[in-house]
């Protein structure tokens, strides 16, 4: 199997797990690993080498393999308003905060997250964010709008998009499609998959994003002091 074929397969499968022939082929041949890295760099990607798997990670500039904000809207809710889309992304952020805390960085701090717990956490965090936003006097109402959207969702246990569960399930399905989490229907539990652990690890340590994190913190300080 040439490095080009391996790259093509990695694009298709998104990951090589340790039991796959591709993983073994790469582990046994340094030239193939180098070839794969070079191809990935040419396609604006990075290869994530982890203990039990190999992943492909699109760089920020890669709009073909990666998802831009419009792409995310396309997947999460084509007719979403800005507040609805922000709310869906905020749900993803809350899932990340729930599983990966500051101390352990990438190791999950809980085995699973109940969907009902996630809903409560999102509501509580939005309420707090909306309060801070109101107190800041910047005139921004993003969190207040998101909180209203969230509270406006029907509590009915249906999968329709207007119901709270339906709204959340769309996000969960997307994360499942991406092999990042698994959702146990009968237990209503969200569980992370190894790919999410590894990609969060990359996200938190990539030099590419480190600058953005610094800018984000700077922006937050300015907003807070302003």
């Amino acid at each position: 199997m040439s490095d080009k074929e391996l790259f093509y397969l990695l694009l298709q499968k998104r990951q090589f797990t340790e039991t796959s022939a591709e993983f073994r082929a790469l582990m046994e041949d340094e030239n193939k690993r180098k070839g794969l890295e070079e191809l990935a760099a040419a396609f604006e990607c990075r290869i994530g080498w982890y203990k039990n798997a190999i992943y492909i990670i699109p760089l920020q500039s890669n709009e073909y393999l990666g998802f831009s904000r419009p792409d995310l809207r396309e997947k999460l809710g084509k007719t979403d308003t800005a507040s609805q889309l922000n709310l869906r992304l905020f749900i993803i952020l809350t899932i990340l905060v729930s599983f990966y805390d500051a101390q352990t960085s990438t190791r999950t701090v809980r085995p699973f997250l109940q969907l009902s717990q996630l809903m409560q956490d999102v509501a509580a965090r939005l309420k707090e964010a909306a309060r801070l936003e109101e107190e800041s006097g910047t005139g921004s109402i993003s969190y207040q709008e998101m909180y209203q959207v969230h509270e406006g969702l029907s509590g009915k246990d249906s999968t329709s998009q207007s119901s709270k569960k339906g709204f959340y399930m769309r996000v969960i399905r997307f994360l499942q499609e991406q092999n990042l989490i698994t959702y146990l229907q009968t237990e209503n539990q969200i569980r992370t998959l190894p790919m999410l652990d590894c990609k969060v690890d990359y996200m938190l340590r990539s030099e590419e994003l480190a600058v953005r994190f610094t800018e984000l913190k700077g922006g937050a300080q300015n907003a807070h002091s302003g």
Partner: protein
Amino acid sequence: MKGGKDMQDSIYMDAQDRLPVYALQSQLQTLILKKSRTLSDFGLKTENQQTWFVFLVMLYLMRQTLEVNDGDGVSLEEAAWQIQDIAKTQFGLSLNREQCAQLSQTIIVDILCNSGAPIQYRTGTRDEKSVLLMFLNSPTVERGGRQTGVYRMADDGFRLIIGTREMEENMKVSISHIIISMHMQAKNYGGALQETKEQIDRLRIEENHIRENINQIRSDVLSFSKEEADSMFEKNLKMFDLSRSKFQEIRQSVSHSIADARKQMEEGDLDAQTAQSLQLMGEIDDHLQYSITLMSRIIDALSDFLKTRRTEFLSQMGTRSVRTCSVLKDLYEPMIRNPASLEILNEFLHPLFVRDIRPIPEPHLFLEVRQYQEKPEETSLDFDEEEDLMEVMEIQRRQRLEEVAAMHAVFAEFMMMLSISGTHTMRLSQFRESSRTLGQMTSPRLLKEMLASWSMVKKVDLAELFQQEPELDLAVETLYSVPLSYLNAARENESLRYFRYLVMEKAEGKIRFPLEEDGRKYWLNMDDILLRLERSVL
């Protein structure tokens, strides 16, 4: 390895008299109970604390006994240092040197050596059987010009610790040859075979573990500091090298035994039991050989580990952040404090998601980027760090709206041509020949985004699309997609509202777009696309 030399052959010559592990534990517990009050004076108040403390001291003594270069044993003074460390780190007790020396005396001399008295275990059975135990040996050695007593783990101590399985995996690896030797001495070939099999399992796990660590380093070289990597390499290399030579010794001895048994067989005086033993020894020999091979492979893997760390350190340090960010502190909390940053949350989530290329059964687009000119030196953009984030984002939003409008304009022209053509069918290559707007699109990034969007769509239900139109505000929409672009075109060209479907299919032939980006020239090669507008079937 000194521990093996001290094995009490007598016990293994008569394996039936060996005590089960729970009896060893029970005897140790009795000895601890006798000194319970003394241990309590040192702050070890509960039975659990006392047992756990003694167990940790035993583990320490075992490690020291197995130590390659310092196998003489441990003096009470040396043990006191370790006891001070255990008391502090494991139990939060701050004991002074004198107390530690006393505790060392209590645990090692009074408990584990029963103050020098024989440790006799009575089974309490009808035959009134009793067995003598010895957890530690205490040879006399010369240190600093004077004779002194030191302590080493004896076979009952080993058996107790091995029986609990409470030891590091690599220690099990290093102790395995002792167990195999003991079984061989007792002619317990079944036990020796079982141990060789278990050793093979442990070695496989160890090899896999080292390979995993190598992969971990490829992902993040900082997951092992230089000191950790060097220490792991040296410690394991020494251990596996030594184990390998010990296994080779055992294998030699097994080979001699096999040769003897074969000689017996040739002479015709081989009984059934010896024949069975011969078969088992043959299997043991095979397993020992395989274990030796695995140990050599592990030694190779260790060299790879160190080599990989060195090479990855050089290549990764330029690209990886030394500081690890936190989801909570660096992403979530700043997001909460600055609502404007919600618009860029997707950028942080970017590494998580990868577009699925599988669901495209007939790939419309095949992008082939062929670079034929060396990339010039990168130029850095000046960015005023003080610039207000909100303002930057607003500028970016406006720029994006202009970009989307440019893509809409190209699509609108395409739709106009399509609607007036006789068959309402047209290829992208035909459109390109006569298009005015396509040629004006100079941004390679936009062109690629637009063509990629076109290539992803197979069929658009226009009736359904128009139903959603009232909910959409195209003037503020920063998303570019074919359905939105069609809506935009229909606002200028009413005739487009009378079609039911827009179908986009892969067509024969390829199209090439010459592009130039940041001084790089390359070709964008893609499959031609056939677009068709269909009316409702009445």
